[in-house]
Protein backbone atom coordinates (compact mmCIF):
# COMPACT_ATOMS: atom_id res chain seq x y z
CA UNK A 1 0.00 0.00 0.00
CA UNK A 2 2.75 2.33 0.95
CA UNK A 3 4.58 1.67 -2.29
CA UNK A 4 1.40 2.37 -4.26
CA UNK A 5 0.95 5.70 -2.54
CA UNK A 6 4.58 6.55 -3.18
CA UNK A 7 4.29 5.56 -6.81
CA UNK A 8 1.21 7.74 -7.18
CA UNK A 9 3.00 10.66 -5.57
CA UNK A 10 6.04 10.20 -7.80
CA UNK A 11 3.89 9.95 -10.88
CA UNK A 12 2.00 13.10 -9.94
CA UNK A 13 5.23 14.94 -9.25
CA UNK A 14 6.67 13.66 -12.51
CA UNK A 15 3.66 14.89 -14.46
CA UNK A 16 3.86 18.31 -12.83
CA UNK A 17 7.53 18.55 -13.69
CA UNK A 18 6.79 17.72 -17.31
CA UNK A 19 4.06 20.32 -17.49
CA UNK A 20 6.30 22.86 -15.82
CA UNK A 21 9.15 22.25 -18.27
CA UNK A 22 6.84 22.47 -21.29
CA UNK A 23 5.40 25.72 -20.00
CA UNK A 24 8.85 27.18 -19.30
CA UNK A 25 9.98 26.32 -22.80
CA UNK A 26 6.86 27.83 -24.33
CA UNK A 27 7.34 30.93 -22.21
CA UNK A 28 10.81 31.25 -23.74
CA UNK A 29 9.35 31.20 -27.26
CA UNK A 30 9.36 27.49 -28.08
CA UNK A 31 6.57 26.00 -30.15
CA UNK A 32 4.32 23.66 -28.10
CA UNK A 33 5.26 20.70 -30.29
CA UNK A 34 8.95 21.30 -29.72
CA UNK A 35 8.39 21.75 -26.01
CA UNK A 36 6.58 18.43 -25.97
CA UNK A 37 9.43 16.69 -27.80
CA UNK A 38 12.02 18.03 -25.39
CA UNK A 39 9.87 17.02 -22.47
CA UNK A 40 9.71 13.49 -23.85
CA UNK A 41 13.49 13.26 -24.12
CA UNK A 42 13.78 14.58 -20.59
CA UNK A 43 11.18 12.12 -19.32
CA UNK A 44 13.06 9.23 -20.87
CA UNK A 45 16.28 10.38 -19.27
CA UNK A 46 14.64 10.76 -15.89
CA UNK A 47 13.15 7.28 -16.16
CA UNK A 48 16.65 5.97 -16.83
CA UNK A 49 17.94 7.72 -13.75
CA UNK A 50 19.96 10.28 -15.67
CA UNK A 51 20.36 13.90 -14.60
CA UNK A 52 17.96 16.02 -16.62
CA UNK A 53 19.34 19.48 -15.86
CA UNK A 54 21.95 19.31 -18.65
CA UNK A 55 19.18 18.45 -21.12
CA UNK A 56 16.87 21.28 -20.14
CA UNK A 57 19.85 23.60 -19.99
CA UNK A 58 20.84 22.67 -23.53
CA UNK A 59 17.33 23.33 -24.76
CA UNK A 60 17.21 26.74 -23.09
CA UNK A 61 20.67 27.58 -24.40
CA UNK A 62 19.60 26.75 -27.94
CA UNK A 63 16.44 28.82 -27.60
CA UNK A 64 18.33 31.76 -26.13
CA UNK A 65 20.78 31.70 -29.00
CA UNK A 66 17.98 31.64 -31.53
CA UNK A 67 18.45 28.19 -32.98
CA UNK A 68 15.53 26.39 -34.56
CA UNK A 69 13.75 23.45 -33.00
CA UNK A 70 15.12 21.23 -35.75
CA UNK A 71 18.61 22.19 -34.69
CA UNK A 72 18.11 21.98 -30.96
CA UNK A 73 16.30 18.67 -30.63
CA UNK A 74 19.09 16.47 -32.10
CA UNK A 75 21.58 18.18 -29.82
CA UNK A 76 19.43 17.44 -26.80
CA UNK A 77 18.99 13.83 -27.88
CA UNK A 78 22.72 13.45 -28.49
CA UNK A 79 23.39 14.83 -25.03
CA UNK A 80 20.99 12.28 -23.54
CA UNK A 81 22.99 9.54 -25.23
CA UNK A 82 26.19 11.01 -23.83
CA UNK A 83 24.72 11.10 -20.36
CA UNK A 84 23.93 7.42 -20.61
CA UNK A 85 27.51 6.72 -21.68
CA UNK A 86 28.75 8.96 -18.90
CA UNK A 87 26.81 7.08 -16.29
CA UNK A 88 28.09 3.77 -17.64
CA UNK A 89 31.65 5.06 -17.33
CA UNK A 90 31.00 6.25 -13.79
CA UNK A 91 29.59 2.87 -12.81
CA UNK A 92 32.63 1.22 -14.40
CA UNK A 93 34.78 3.34 -12.10
CA UNK A 94 33.07 1.79 -9.11
CA UNK A 95 30.45 4.45 -8.39
CA UNK A 96 27.26 2.53 -7.85
CA UNK A 97 25.08 5.64 -7.73
CA UNK A 98 27.00 8.46 -9.40
CA UNK A 99 25.69 11.95 -8.77
CA UNK A 100 24.14 13.98 -11.51
CA UNK A 101 27.15 16.29 -11.57
CA UNK A 102 29.53 13.42 -12.13
CA UNK A 103 27.39 11.93 -14.87
CA UNK A 104 27.09 15.32 -16.55
CA UNK A 105 30.84 15.92 -16.30
CA UNK A 106 31.55 12.47 -17.67
CA UNK A 107 29.17 13.13 -20.55
CA UNK A 108 30.95 16.41 -21.25
CA UNK A 109 34.33 14.68 -21.20
CA UNK A 110 33.13 11.99 -23.57
CA UNK A 111 31.64 14.64 -25.81
CA UNK A 112 35.02 16.36 -26.05
CA UNK A 113 36.69 13.19 -27.21
CA UNK A 114 37.86 11.42 -24.09
CA UNK A 115 37.70 7.65 -24.07
CA UNK A 116 35.61 5.82 -21.54
CA UNK A 117 38.71 4.28 -19.99
CA UNK A 118 40.16 7.75 -19.56
CA UNK A 119 37.03 8.97 -17.82
CA UNK A 120 37.28 5.97 -15.54
CA UNK A 121 40.94 6.79 -14.78
CA UNK A 122 40.05 10.33 -13.71
CA UNK A 123 37.14 9.16 -11.59
CA UNK A 124 39.27 6.57 -9.83
CA UNK A 125 42.03 9.07 -9.10
CA UNK A 126 39.70 11.73 -7.69
CA UNK A 127 39.54 11.89 -3.90
CA UNK A 128 35.78 12.56 -3.79
CA UNK A 129 32.62 13.17 -5.81
CA UNK A 130 33.12 16.93 -6.19
CA UNK A 131 36.74 16.42 -7.14
CA UNK A 132 35.66 13.82 -9.66
CA UNK A 133 33.37 16.17 -11.54
CA UNK A 134 35.95 18.98 -11.41
CA UNK A 135 38.65 16.63 -12.68
CA UNK A 136 36.53 15.60 -15.63
CA UNK A 137 35.66 19.21 -16.39
CA UNK A 138 39.32 20.19 -16.28
CA UNK A 139 40.35 17.26 -18.45
CA UNK A 140 37.63 18.10 -20.98
CA UNK A 141 38.78 21.71 -20.97
CA UNK A 142 42.35 20.66 -21.69
CA UNK A 143 41.16 18.47 -24.54
CA UNK A 144 39.17 21.40 -25.91
CA UNK A 145 42.47 23.33 -26.02
CA UNK A 146 43.94 20.67 -28.29
CA UNK A 147 45.75 18.56 -25.72
CA UNK A 148 45.47 14.83 -26.39
CA UNK A 149 42.93 13.16 -24.15
CA UNK A 150 45.48 10.68 -22.81
CA UNK A 151 47.75 13.57 -21.79
CA UNK A 152 44.87 15.45 -20.20
CA UNK A 153 43.82 12.33 -18.33
CA UNK A 154 47.33 11.69 -17.11
CA UNK A 155 47.71 15.29 -15.96
CA UNK A 156 44.51 15.27 -13.91
CA UNK A 157 44.95 11.78 -12.50
CA UNK A 158 48.57 12.47 -11.53
CA UNK A 159 47.65 15.75 -9.86
CA UNK A 160 45.03 14.05 -7.73
CA UNK A 161 47.35 11.19 -6.85
CA UNK A 162 49.95 13.74 -5.75
CA UNK A 163 47.42 15.17 -3.33
CA UNK A 164 46.34 18.25 -5.27
CA UNK A 165 42.93 19.64 -4.44
CA UNK A 166 40.11 20.21 -6.90
CA UNK A 167 40.56 23.94 -6.35
CA UNK A 168 44.20 23.72 -7.39
CA UNK A 169 43.27 21.64 -10.40
CA UNK A 170 41.00 24.40 -11.65
CA UNK A 171 44.17 26.44 -12.25
CA UNK A 172 45.41 23.97 -14.82
CA UNK A 173 43.40 25.07 -17.88
CA UNK A 174 44.19 28.74 -17.14
CA UNK A 175 47.90 28.00 -17.07
CA UNK A 176 47.90 25.99 -20.27
CA UNK A 177 45.73 28.61 -21.92
CA UNK A 178 48.24 31.31 -21.01
CA UNK A 179 51.06 29.18 -22.40
CA UNK A 180 49.26 28.78 -25.69
CA UNK A 181 48.58 32.52 -25.74
CA UNK A 182 52.31 33.10 -25.37
CA UNK A 183 53.01 30.94 -28.38
CA UNK A 184 54.26 27.85 -26.58
CA UNK A 185 53.88 24.83 -28.82
CA UNK A 186 51.56 21.96 -28.03
CA UNK A 187 54.34 19.41 -27.42
CA UNK A 188 56.06 21.84 -25.07
CA UNK A 189 52.81 22.47 -23.19
CA UNK A 190 52.30 18.73 -22.78
CA UNK A 191 55.90 18.36 -21.61
CA UNK A 192 55.45 21.10 -19.03
CA UNK A 193 52.22 19.58 -17.77
CA UNK A 194 53.88 16.22 -17.25
CA UNK A 195 56.79 17.86 -15.48
CA UNK A 196 54.35 19.38 -13.03
CA UNK A 197 55.09 22.95 -14.03
CA UNK A 198 51.45 23.90 -14.45
CA UNK A 199 50.60 23.56 -10.79
CA UNK A 200 53.04 25.40 -8.56
CA UNK A 201 51.93 25.83 -5.00
CA UNK A 202 48.97 28.20 -5.15
CA UNK A 203 49.01 30.67 -2.28
CA UNK A 204 51.86 32.90 -1.32
CA UNK A 205 53.94 32.00 -4.32
CA UNK A 206 55.15 35.53 -4.73
CA UNK A 207 55.25 36.64 -1.15
CA UNK A 208 57.94 34.30 0.02
CA UNK A 209 60.25 35.24 -2.77
CA UNK A 210 60.60 38.84 -1.75
CA UNK A 211 61.29 39.71 -5.34
CA UNK A 212 61.32 43.46 -5.53
CA UNK A 213 62.41 45.12 -8.71
CA UNK A 214 65.41 46.93 -7.50
CA UNK A 215 68.17 46.65 -5.04
CA UNK A 216 67.91 45.58 -1.48
CA UNK A 217 70.31 46.37 1.30
CA UNK A 218 73.45 44.35 0.99
CA UNK A 219 73.21 43.57 -2.68
CA UNK A 220 75.46 46.36 -3.89
CA UNK A 221 74.98 48.82 -6.70
CA UNK A 222 74.19 47.67 -10.22
CA UNK A 223 77.82 48.04 -11.18
CA UNK A 224 80.78 49.00 -9.04
CA UNK A 225 83.18 51.22 -10.95
CA UNK A 226 86.86 50.46 -10.58
CA UNK A 227 88.59 52.26 -7.78
CA UNK A 228 85.32 53.10 -6.09
CA UNK A 229 85.33 50.51 -3.40
CA UNK A 230 87.63 50.14 -0.48
CA UNK A 231 88.22 53.84 -0.16
CA UNK A 232 85.20 54.85 1.87
CA UNK A 233 83.58 51.78 3.29
CA UNK A 234 80.41 52.45 5.17
CA UNK A 235 81.40 50.39 8.09
CA UNK A 236 81.00 52.07 11.41
Amino acid sequence: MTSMVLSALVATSFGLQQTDLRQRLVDRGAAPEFAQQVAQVVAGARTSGLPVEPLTDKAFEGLAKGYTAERILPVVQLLADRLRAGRTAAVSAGLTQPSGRIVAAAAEALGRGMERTEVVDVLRAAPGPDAASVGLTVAASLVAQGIASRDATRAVATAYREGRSAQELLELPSVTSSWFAEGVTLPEVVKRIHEGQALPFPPGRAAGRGVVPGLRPGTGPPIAPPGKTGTKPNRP
Partner: protein
Amino acid sequence: MRAALLWGVLVMGTPALVPAQQVSALVGGVSARYADSISGSAALVGGRLRYARGGTRGDVETSVARFTSGEWAAQLGAQGVFARSVTRHDAVGLAVGGSFNKLEAGIWSATAAAGPFLARAAGNVTASVSLSGGWARTVDSSAFATGTASLGTRYERGRWRLESVAVGTAADTLRLLDWTVVAGWRTPAVSVAGLGGVRSGDLASDPWWQLRAEVAIAPWAALETALGQYPRDLTGFTSGRFATLGMRIDIRKGPPVPVRGTDAFRAERLGAARVRVTLQLDGARSVAVAGEWNDWVPTPMRRDASGRWTAVLGLRPGVYRCALLVDGARWVAPPGALTTDDDFGGEVGLLIVPEA
Protein backbone atom coordinates in the same frame (compact mmCIF):
# COMPACT_ATOMS: atom_id res chain seq x y z
CA MET B 1 91.94 39.77 -17.47
CA ARG B 2 92.13 36.01 -17.24
CA ALA B 3 89.71 36.10 -14.30
CA ALA B 4 87.32 38.17 -16.38
CA LEU B 5 87.53 35.63 -19.14
CA LEU B 6 86.80 32.83 -16.72
CA TRP B 7 83.82 34.74 -15.40
CA GLY B 8 82.59 35.26 -18.94
CA VAL B 9 82.81 31.54 -19.57
CA LEU B 10 80.85 30.99 -16.37
CA VAL B 11 78.22 33.52 -17.40
CA MET B 12 77.68 32.11 -20.84
CA GLY B 13 78.41 28.46 -20.11
CA THR B 14 76.41 27.85 -16.97
CA PRO B 15 73.07 27.62 -18.80
CA ALA B 16 74.26 24.48 -20.49
CA LEU B 17 75.20 22.84 -17.21
CA VAL B 18 72.30 23.71 -14.94
CA PRO B 19 68.81 22.27 -15.42
CA ALA B 20 67.23 25.70 -15.72
CA GLN B 21 63.88 26.01 -17.41
CA GLN B 22 64.37 29.60 -18.51
CA VAL B 23 67.71 30.85 -19.69
CA SER B 24 68.30 34.31 -21.03
CA ALA B 25 71.21 36.51 -21.94
CA LEU B 26 71.47 40.27 -21.46
CA VAL B 27 73.59 42.56 -23.57
CA GLY B 28 73.62 46.24 -22.77
CA GLY B 29 75.23 49.05 -20.92
CA VAL B 30 75.12 50.70 -17.52
CA SER B 31 76.07 54.08 -16.21
CA ALA B 32 76.31 54.81 -12.51
CA ARG B 33 77.11 57.91 -10.52
CA TYR B 34 77.92 57.69 -6.86
CA ALA B 35 77.37 60.00 -3.98
CA ASP B 36 80.95 61.23 -4.01
CA SER B 37 80.67 62.04 -7.71
CA ILE B 38 82.71 59.12 -8.99
CA SER B 39 81.01 57.76 -12.05
CA GLY B 40 81.52 54.87 -14.39
CA SER B 41 80.07 53.46 -17.57
CA ALA B 42 80.37 49.91 -18.75
CA ALA B 43 79.32 47.51 -21.43
CA LEU B 44 77.47 44.63 -19.87
CA VAL B 45 76.99 40.96 -20.69
CA GLY B 46 74.88 38.84 -18.40
CA GLY B 47 72.91 35.67 -18.03
CA ARG B 48 69.88 34.64 -16.03
CA LEU B 49 68.60 31.20 -15.14
CA ARG B 50 65.22 30.49 -13.71
CA TYR B 51 63.76 27.30 -12.38
CA ALA B 52 60.27 26.61 -11.09
CA ARG B 53 58.78 23.28 -10.28
CA GLY B 54 56.13 22.66 -7.69
CA GLY B 55 57.04 24.74 -4.68
CA THR B 56 60.67 25.11 -5.70
CA ARG B 57 61.78 28.25 -7.48
CA GLY B 58 65.14 29.74 -8.10
CA ASP B 59 66.81 32.59 -9.94
CA VAL B 60 70.49 33.03 -10.67
CA GLU B 61 71.63 36.20 -12.36
CA THR B 62 75.16 37.11 -13.22
CA SER B 63 76.93 39.72 -15.29
CA VAL B 64 80.35 40.85 -16.27
CA ALA B 65 81.02 44.47 -17.21
CA ARG B 66 83.95 46.13 -18.91
CA PHE B 67 84.32 49.78 -18.10
CA THR B 68 85.12 52.45 -20.59
CA SER B 69 88.33 52.95 -18.63
CA GLY B 70 89.37 49.36 -19.32
CA GLU B 71 88.76 47.61 -16.02
CA TRP B 72 86.09 45.00 -15.39
CA ALA B 73 83.66 44.05 -12.65
CA ALA B 74 81.53 40.98 -12.10
CA GLN B 75 78.39 40.39 -10.11
CA LEU B 76 76.39 37.32 -9.18
CA GLY B 77 73.08 37.13 -7.39
CA ALA B 78 71.01 34.09 -6.53
CA GLN B 79 67.84 33.33 -4.65
CA GLY B 80 65.76 30.28 -4.12
CA VAL B 81 62.49 29.35 -2.46
CA PHE B 82 61.38 25.96 -1.25
CA ALA B 83 57.74 26.19 -0.27
CA ARG B 84 54.91 23.91 0.60
CA SER B 85 51.19 24.54 0.93
CA VAL B 86 49.92 23.64 4.36
CA THR B 87 46.33 24.68 3.81
CA ARG B 88 44.42 25.98 0.86
CA HIS B 89 45.55 29.51 1.70
CA ASP B 90 48.80 29.08 3.59
CA ALA B 91 52.29 28.16 2.61
CA VAL B 92 55.49 27.80 4.57
CA GLY B 93 58.96 27.49 3.23
CA LEU B 94 62.60 28.35 3.24
CA ALA B 95 64.10 31.22 1.29
CA VAL B 96 67.81 31.44 0.53
CA GLY B 97 69.74 34.15 -1.25
CA GLY B 98 73.13 35.62 -1.79
CA SER B 99 75.23 38.00 -3.84
CA PHE B 100 78.83 38.36 -4.90
CA ASN B 101 80.56 41.41 -6.33
CA LYS B 102 84.14 41.39 -7.59
CA LEU B 103 86.35 44.05 -9.06
CA GLU B 104 89.48 43.65 -11.11
CA ALA B 105 91.69 44.91 -8.30
CA GLY B 106 90.86 41.81 -6.28
CA ILE B 107 88.36 43.60 -4.10
CA TRP B 108 85.19 41.71 -3.44
CA SER B 109 82.11 41.67 -1.27
CA ALA B 110 79.47 39.07 -0.64
CA THR B 111 76.29 38.31 1.25
CA ALA B 112 74.44 35.13 2.03
CA ALA B 113 71.26 34.55 4.00
CA ALA B 114 68.59 31.94 4.56
CA GLY B 115 65.48 31.68 6.64
CA PRO B 116 61.88 30.54 6.93
CA PHE B 117 58.78 32.33 5.73
CA LEU B 118 55.06 32.02 6.11
CA ALA B 119 52.63 33.29 3.50
CA ARG B 120 48.87 33.55 3.49
CA ALA B 121 46.67 34.34 0.49
CA ALA B 122 43.17 35.75 0.80
CA GLY B 123 41.47 36.90 -2.36
CA ASN B 124 43.76 39.29 -4.19
CA VAL B 125 45.96 39.87 -1.17
CA THR B 126 48.97 37.85 -0.11
CA ALA B 127 50.76 38.59 3.13
CA SER B 128 54.03 37.11 4.26
CA VAL B 129 56.38 37.22 7.17
CA SER B 130 59.93 35.98 7.06
CA LEU B 131 63.11 35.75 9.08
CA SER B 132 66.62 35.20 7.88
CA GLY B 133 70.09 34.82 9.21
CA GLY B 134 73.24 35.22 7.21
CA TRP B 135 76.65 36.63 6.67
CA ALA B 136 78.18 39.59 4.88
CA ARG B 137 81.68 40.38 3.78
CA THR B 138 82.51 43.99 3.08
CA VAL B 139 84.84 45.43 0.49
CA ASP B 140 87.35 46.22 3.24
CA SER B 141 87.56 42.51 4.13
CA SER B 142 85.61 42.53 7.38
CA ALA B 143 82.84 40.04 7.89
CA PHE B 144 79.91 39.82 10.25
CA ALA B 145 76.63 38.04 10.82
CA THR B 146 73.36 39.50 9.62
CA GLY B 147 69.76 39.01 10.59
CA THR B 148 66.55 40.29 9.02
CA ALA B 149 62.86 40.21 9.72
CA SER B 150 60.44 41.24 7.02
CA LEU B 151 56.76 41.78 6.58
CA GLY B 152 55.31 41.93 3.08
CA THR B 153 51.91 42.52 1.56
CA ARG B 154 51.01 42.12 -2.07
CA TYR B 155 47.77 43.12 -3.75
CA GLU B 156 46.98 42.09 -7.29
CA ARG B 157 44.07 43.18 -9.40
CA GLY B 158 43.97 42.67 -13.11
CA ARG B 159 47.18 43.94 -14.59
CA TRP B 160 48.13 45.85 -11.50
CA ARG B 161 50.03 44.88 -8.42
CA LEU B 162 50.98 46.80 -5.35
CA GLU B 163 53.54 45.61 -2.85
CA SER B 164 54.73 46.86 0.46
CA VAL B 165 57.76 45.33 2.14
CA ALA B 166 59.26 46.34 5.47
CA VAL B 167 62.64 44.83 6.32
CA GLY B 168 64.41 45.25 9.62
CA THR B 169 68.12 44.45 9.50
CA ALA B 170 70.65 43.86 12.24
CA ALA B 171 74.26 43.47 11.12
CA ASP B 172 77.19 43.81 13.45
CA THR B 173 76.47 47.11 15.22
CA LEU B 174 74.13 48.36 12.48
CA ARG B 175 70.37 48.53 12.96
CA LEU B 176 68.19 49.74 10.12
CA LEU B 177 64.64 49.53 8.88
CA ASP B 178 63.82 49.78 5.17
CA TRP B 179 60.34 50.21 3.80
CA THR B 180 59.72 49.90 0.08
CA VAL B 181 56.56 50.23 -1.93
CA VAL B 182 56.30 48.84 -5.44
CA ALA B 183 53.62 49.48 -8.02
CA GLY B 184 53.64 47.40 -11.16
CA TRP B 185 51.59 47.03 -14.31
CA ARG B 186 52.01 44.42 -16.97
CA THR B 187 50.58 43.08 -20.15
CA PRO B 188 51.93 40.10 -22.06
CA ALA B 189 54.24 42.49 -23.91
CA VAL B 190 55.01 45.30 -21.49
CA SER B 191 55.99 45.34 -17.84
CA VAL B 192 56.50 48.55 -15.89
CA ALA B 193 57.33 48.88 -12.22
CA GLY B 194 58.13 51.76 -9.93
CA LEU B 195 59.68 51.51 -6.50
CA GLY B 196 60.08 53.96 -3.67
CA GLY B 197 61.99 53.34 -0.48
CA VAL B 198 62.82 55.03 2.81
CA ARG B 199 65.15 54.04 5.61
CA SER B 200 65.42 54.79 9.26
CA GLY B 201 68.26 53.89 11.60
CA ASP B 202 71.87 53.36 10.59
CA LEU B 203 73.18 53.88 7.05
CA ALA B 204 70.51 56.53 6.70
CA SER B 205 70.09 58.01 3.27
CA ASP B 206 67.58 60.08 1.40
CA PRO B 207 64.50 58.26 0.09
CA TRP B 208 65.23 56.41 -3.14
CA TRP B 209 63.24 55.50 -6.20
CA GLN B 210 63.62 53.28 -9.22
CA LEU B 211 61.76 52.73 -12.46
CA ARG B 212 62.04 49.59 -14.52
CA ALA B 213 60.47 48.58 -17.80
CA GLU B 214 60.53 45.60 -20.12
CA VAL B 215 59.09 45.64 -23.61
CA ALA B 216 58.88 42.46 -25.64
CA ILE B 217 60.02 43.08 -29.19
CA ALA B 218 59.86 39.46 -30.31
CA PRO B 219 58.77 36.17 -28.75
CA TRP B 220 62.41 35.60 -27.83
CA ALA B 221 63.67 39.11 -27.06
CA ALA B 222 62.82 42.07 -24.85
CA LEU B 223 64.27 45.48 -24.19
CA GLU B 224 65.01 46.17 -20.55
CA THR B 225 65.69 49.51 -19.03
CA ALA B 226 66.00 50.81 -15.51
CA LEU B 227 67.03 53.98 -13.80
CA GLY B 228 66.90 55.39 -10.35
CA GLN B 229 68.67 55.66 -7.07
CA TYR B 230 69.85 53.11 -4.53
CA PRO B 231 70.74 53.43 -0.87
CA ARG B 232 73.97 52.69 0.95
CA ASP B 233 74.41 49.02 1.67
CA LEU B 234 75.97 46.71 4.19
CA THR B 235 78.98 45.71 2.13
CA GLY B 236 80.50 49.15 1.74
CA PHE B 237 78.91 50.75 -1.28
CA THR B 238 77.64 54.27 -0.98
CA SER B 239 74.33 55.46 -2.36
CA GLY B 240 74.09 56.66 -5.95
CA ARG B 241 72.22 56.75 -9.21
CA PHE B 242 72.21 54.41 -12.18
CA ALA B 243 70.72 53.89 -15.62
CA THR B 244 70.80 50.67 -17.62
CA LEU B 245 69.60 49.67 -21.04
CA GLY B 246 69.88 46.25 -22.57
CA MET B 247 68.31 43.57 -24.67
CA ARG B 248 67.41 40.26 -23.10
CA ILE B 249 67.38 37.25 -25.35
CA ASP B 250 65.62 34.06 -24.35
CA ILE B 251 67.78 31.08 -25.00
CA ARG B 252 65.32 28.70 -23.42
CA LYS B 253 61.90 29.84 -22.27
CA GLY B 254 60.14 28.47 -19.21
CA PRO B 255 56.66 28.70 -17.78
CA PRO B 256 55.06 31.99 -16.84
CA VAL B 257 53.81 32.46 -13.32
CA PRO B 258 50.35 30.91 -13.36
CA VAL B 259 47.38 33.13 -12.81
CA ARG B 260 43.87 32.45 -11.63
CA GLY B 261 41.49 33.32 -14.45
CA THR B 262 42.62 35.92 -16.89
CA ASP B 263 42.92 39.65 -17.02
CA ALA B 264 39.96 39.80 -19.38
CA PHE B 265 37.47 37.63 -17.52
CA ARG B 266 37.36 36.84 -13.84
CA ALA B 267 35.01 35.99 -11.02
CA GLU B 268 35.39 37.28 -7.48
CA ARG B 269 33.57 35.86 -4.52
CA LEU B 270 31.49 38.41 -2.64
CA GLY B 271 29.87 35.96 -0.24
CA ALA B 272 28.75 32.38 0.09
CA ALA B 273 26.58 32.57 -3.02
CA ARG B 274 27.39 35.91 -4.64
CA VAL B 275 29.93 36.45 -7.35
CA ARG B 276 31.05 39.55 -9.21
CA VAL B 277 31.88 38.76 -12.82
CA THR B 278 34.16 41.23 -14.57
CA LEU B 279 35.30 41.32 -18.15
CA GLN B 280 36.85 43.56 -20.73
CA LEU B 281 34.98 43.89 -24.02
CA ASP B 282 35.83 46.93 -26.06
CA GLY B 283 33.40 48.37 -28.58
CA ALA B 284 30.21 46.92 -27.11
CA ARG B 285 27.19 49.13 -26.42
CA SER B 286 25.53 46.58 -24.17
CA VAL B 287 26.60 43.28 -22.67
CA ALA B 288 24.58 40.64 -20.84
CA VAL B 289 25.79 37.40 -19.37
CA ALA B 290 23.78 34.19 -19.47
CA GLY B 291 24.47 30.66 -18.48
CA GLU B 292 23.27 27.40 -17.11
CA TRP B 293 22.47 28.87 -13.71
CA ASN B 294 19.25 30.58 -14.84
CA ASP B 295 18.02 28.86 -17.99
CA TRP B 296 20.17 31.19 -20.11
CA VAL B 297 18.19 34.30 -19.33
CA PRO B 298 20.64 37.17 -20.00
CA THR B 299 21.60 39.30 -17.01
CA PRO B 300 22.57 42.85 -18.06
CA MET B 301 26.08 43.91 -17.17
CA ARG B 302 27.08 47.40 -16.11
CA ARG B 303 30.11 49.27 -17.37
CA ASP B 304 32.24 50.63 -14.54
CA ALA B 305 34.45 53.70 -14.50
CA SER B 306 37.43 51.79 -15.88
CA GLY B 307 35.43 50.56 -18.87
CA ARG B 308 35.07 47.00 -17.66
CA TRP B 309 31.70 45.24 -17.65
CA THR B 310 30.51 43.83 -14.34
CA ALA B 311 27.54 41.91 -12.99
CA VAL B 312 26.79 40.33 -9.64
CA LEU B 313 25.39 36.81 -9.86
CA GLY B 314 24.05 34.39 -7.30
CA LEU B 315 26.40 31.47 -7.76
CA ARG B 316 28.05 28.95 -5.50
CA PRO B 317 31.55 27.57 -6.16
CA GLY B 318 31.73 25.47 -9.28
CA VAL B 319 32.19 25.56 -13.01
CA TYR B 320 29.39 27.03 -15.13
CA ARG B 321 28.88 27.22 -18.89
CA CYS B 322 28.13 30.75 -19.97
CA ALA B 323 28.12 33.19 -22.88
CA LEU B 324 27.72 36.89 -23.50
CA LEU B 325 24.95 38.58 -25.44
CA VAL B 326 26.59 41.60 -27.05
CA ASP B 327 24.50 44.53 -28.24
CA GLY B 328 21.41 42.36 -27.83
CA ALA B 329 22.18 40.38 -30.96
CA ARG B 330 25.48 38.52 -30.90
CA TRP B 331 26.41 35.57 -28.68
CA VAL B 332 30.08 35.18 -27.89
CA ALA B 333 32.18 33.33 -25.36
CA PRO B 334 33.69 35.73 -22.80
CA PRO B 335 37.04 36.93 -24.11
CA GLY B 336 39.87 35.37 -22.18
CA ALA B 337 37.68 32.65 -20.65
CA LEU B 338 38.31 28.98 -21.03
CA THR B 339 35.99 27.77 -23.74
CA THR B 340 34.39 24.60 -24.95
CA ASP B 341 32.04 23.63 -27.77
CA ASP B 342 28.42 24.61 -27.33
CA ASP B 343 27.27 21.67 -29.49
CA PHE B 344 25.62 24.14 -31.85
CA GLY B 345 28.79 24.96 -33.76
CA GLY B 346 29.85 27.78 -31.48
CA GLU B 347 31.59 28.16 -28.16
CA VAL B 348 30.67 28.75 -24.54
CA GLY B 349 32.90 30.03 -21.80
CA LEU B 350 33.55 28.26 -18.52
CA LEU B 351 32.95 30.49 -15.54
CA ILE B 352 34.98 29.21 -12.63
CA VAL B 353 33.73 30.34 -9.25
CA PRO B 354 36.47 29.64 -6.73
CA GLU B 355 35.86 28.54 -3.20
CA ALA B 356 36.32 31.13 -0.52
